[in-house]
C-alpha cells in the first residue's frame, strides 16, 4: 500500500507519472496518487477534440484576440489514457487516482471512499451517483436526517427522487483504465475552482452539431465546488485510504525528477505529441 503526491502542475507529467505507477508497480500493491494541474482541458482516450472543445476560443485566447480571464492565458489540451469524458482542470481542482489489483476492484469502491472522506469534513450532501461520479445533492434541508444512515454513500438526506427538483451538482467525474494485472480508477474533484462559469464556454464546441463521430461523447452535467481546502481534503482522503486498506502509509512526494526515468519520459513525449492528442481521434465525418 503506497501513496504519492505530485509537486508538479504539468498535466502531461502527472499523467505520465500515473501511467508509470500503473505499469510498473507490483501486481498486488494498492497505490493512491494525488495531483493538481494548471489550467487544462483533459479529454478521454477515445474522444474527439473538435467535438468536445471550443477550439476556436482556445486559439483566440492564445493569439490574444480574445481576452483571457486571469490565470487562463494558456490552457493545455491533454488526452489521457483512460476512458470517459472531457473535464476542465485548474488549480481549484484536485485529481485523485487509485491503482489496485483487478480482484479487489469495483467501479464505485474508491468513489465511495472519497465520499466518506468528504462527509468526514462536513460535506453531508456528497454521494456517489449511478454513473460512479460524486455529486452534491441540491434537495432542501429536510427534517428526516435520521432516516438515511450516514454509511450509505449513494444517498444523502438531501436526495430527492423527484425529477423536477434541482439536479445534483457534479463535483467529481470518474474514468478507468483496466489492464490484465491492474485496475486504475481516477477522478477529478472540484474543491474551489474560480472558473466554474467559464468552463461551459470552453467545453461547448461550435462544431458539435456538424460532426458525426465514432468514439465516446461526453455527458454534460452542471458542476459545483465542494468548498473544502486542499490540505484538509488530501488528509481526509489519505485517512480513508489507510482505513480501507488497514495500513498506514507515508505520502511520498514526487515531481520533475521522474522525467529521468525513461518510461516516464517516453510517456510524457507521447502525451505531448500532436499525433497522440489529435491523431488518436476515432473516425468522424463533417
Amino acid at each position, binding site marked *: 500500500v*503506497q501513496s504519492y503526491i505530485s509537486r508538479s502542475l504539468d498535466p502531461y507529467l502527472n499523467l505520465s507519472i500515473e501511467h508509470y505507477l500503473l505499469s*510498473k508497480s*507490483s501486481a498486488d500493491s494498492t497505490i493512491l496518487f494525488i495531483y493538481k494541474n494548471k489550467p487544462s482541458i483533459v479529454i478521454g482516450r477515445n474522444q474527439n477534440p473538435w467535438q468536445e472543445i471550443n477550439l476556436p476560443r482556445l486559439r483566440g485566447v492564445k493569439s490574444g484576440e480574445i481576452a483571457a480571464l486571469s490565470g487562463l492565458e494558456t490552457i493545455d489540451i491533454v488526452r489521457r489514457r483512460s476512458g470517459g469524458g472531457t473535464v476542465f482542470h485548474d488549480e481549484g481542482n484536485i485529481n485523485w487516482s487509485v491503482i489496485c489489483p483487478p480482484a479487489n476492484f469495483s467501479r464505485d469502491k474508491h468513489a465511495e471512499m472519497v465520499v466518506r472522506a468528504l462527509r468526514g469534513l462536513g460535506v453531508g450532501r456528497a454521494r456517489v451517483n449511478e454513473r460512479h461520479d460524486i455529486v452534491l445533492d441540491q434537495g432542501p434541508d429536510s427534517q428526516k436526517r435520521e432516516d438515511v444512515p450516514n454509511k450509505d454513500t449513494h444517498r444523502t438526506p438531501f436526495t430527492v427522487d423527484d425529477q423536477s427538483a434541482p439536479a445534483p451538482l457534479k463535483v467529481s467525474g470518474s474514468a478507468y483504465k483496466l489492464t*490484465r494485472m491492474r485496475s486504475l480508477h481516477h477522478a477529478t474533484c472540484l474543491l474551489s475552482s474560480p472558473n466554474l462559469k467559464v468552463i461551459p464556454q470552453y467545453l461547448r464546441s461550435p462544431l458539435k452539431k456538424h460532426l458525426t463521430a465514432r468514439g*465516446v461523447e461526453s455527458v454534460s452535467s452542471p458542476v459545483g465546488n465542494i468548498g473544502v481546502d486542499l490540505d484538509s481534503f488530501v488528509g481526509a482522503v489519505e485517512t480513508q485510504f489507510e482505513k480501507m486498506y488497514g495500513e498506514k502509509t507515508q505520502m511520498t512526494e514526487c515531481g520533475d525528477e521522474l522525467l529521468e526515468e525513461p518510461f516516464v519520459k517516453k510517456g510524457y513525449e507521447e502525451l505531448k505529441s500532436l499525433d497522440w492528442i489529435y491523431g488518436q481521434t476515432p473516425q468522424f465525418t463533417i
Partner: protein
Amino acid sequence: MLLVGTKVSHFPSRGVIHGRRQHIPRATFATTRRLDVVKPFLLADIGEGITECQIIQWFVAPGARVEQFDKICEVQSDKASVEITSRFDGIIKKLYYEKDDVAKVGKPLLDIDIQGEIGPEDEAVVAGGEEQPQEKTDKKTTIEEVQVKSETISKHDEGKATIQEQDSSAVGQRGKAATLATPAVRRITKELNVEITDVQGTGKDGRVLKEDVQKFALARQEQGQPSAQAAAAPIPQAIGEDKVMSLTAVQSAMFKTMTRSLSIPHFLYTDTVDFSSLNILRKKANARTTASQQPQAKLSALPFIIKAVSIALSEHPHLNAHLDTSDPSKPKMNHRASHNIGIAVDSPSGLLVPVIRNVQSHSIASIAAEIVRLSTLAQSGKLAPKDFEGATFTVSNVGSIGGGVVSPVIVSPQVAILGVGRARAVPAFGEAGEVVRREECIFSWAADHRVVDGAGVARCADRVRGLLEGLEEMLVNMR
C-alpha cells in the same frame, strides 16, 4: 509481425531487463509438432452489463505471433479503457473488427492459430542442450543485473526502491515464461526432463528451486504409470471440426423477434380436427380444377383452415388484437378490424412469415392463390418488407413437413398463434360403434396468458373445428 514493440526479440537478450520476460525460444527448434487449432477468441465480459465496446487500437495484425498475456487490443466502453490480452500462444489469423469499430461482448474478436504444447515442449528440453550454456550465462548476467539494480536503487529514496524491488517480483509472478532460476536448477530440469514453466516455485519471488523440480519429477513419475496405460487405449477423435457460424440475416431477424417473444407467457391448447369431410370436398374441387384445366391452384387444407380461422376471429375479436405495452402501467389491446394472417413458409434461407391481408374479404380460392404467390416469392427470395408487415394472427402449417402436437411461439405484438400438425389416418368409432377410418389433424393454439384466458381460446378453437368438420357451417357463414 508484431506491431508496437512491447516484446523483446525471440533470442535471450543480454540487455538489462526492463521488467520484461525471458523465455526459451520455441522458434529455434526444428519441425515442431503442433495442434493446428484455429479458434475464435471471444471478447470477454468486461462487467457492468456492458454489451459492446469500441476498438481503440490493435496491438497485433494477422500473421503476428503472440504469447499468452501479450496485449491484443485496447477497447473503450463508456468510462473505461480496457486492455485485452491473449489467452493463448499462437499466430493471429484474422481480426473481426477494424480500429474504431464497435465490438460485441461474447462475439469473436479474432481467430488465433493456437500452438499446441506437446511437441515443442519435449523437443525444447532435448534440443536445448546446446542452447543451455549460452542461456545459462545470459540468465546469470541478467539475474546479477537485477540484483545490482536492486542494490543501487536502495540507495535512492525509499519510494522508488519499493517500485523497483517489486518490479522484479512482478516479473516472477507473471506468465509462465517468467522463469527465474539458477543455472544449477536449469541443469536439473534438463536431466529430469522437466519443463521449468510447469514447476511451482517456492523460492524468493517465486523462483524455482532444486527441491521443487525434484518433487515435481517424482509426482510426475507416479502419475506416469496410469497415464501410460490410458495412452494405450485409442482416444476417440472427433470427426470434422467445430465450426463457429454467425447468424444469417433471417436467423438474426428470428433471433430478435423471438427474444421479444420471451416476455410472453404462453399457454398451449390442443385439439384434434376431423379432416375427413374436408378432404372429400377438396378432392372433388381439385378433380374439377384438373378437368377444367383452368389456371387455378389445387386446394390444400391450408386455405380452408385460414378462412375458418378468420370466421372464428370475427366472433372472437380479442384474439385478432395487438397488445400495446408501450406504457407498462397501462397495457392496451388494439382490436384490429382486418384479419391479416401471417403464414409460416419454409424457404431456402429459413423461416419467413409473409402476410395475407384482409382474409375476411378473401374467398378460399383467392386465399389459395395468395399462398402460392407468397410461397413462390419466398422460395426465390423476392419478398418485399411490406409483405411481412401488419400481421394480426399467425398460422404455422408445419404439418406439411410433419408434427403432431406443436408448441408455436407467438410473434409480438400478436396475442395468439395456431400451429397445424400433419393430417394422419387413424381408426375411430362411428355412430354404431363400428371402426371407421378418419383423417385427423392436431391443431395447437398458443395464446398470451396476460390478456387471453383458456376459455377464450377454447371457444375459438372449437368454432374453427366445427367449421372445418361441418363445411356447411362454413358456407353459411362465408362473407
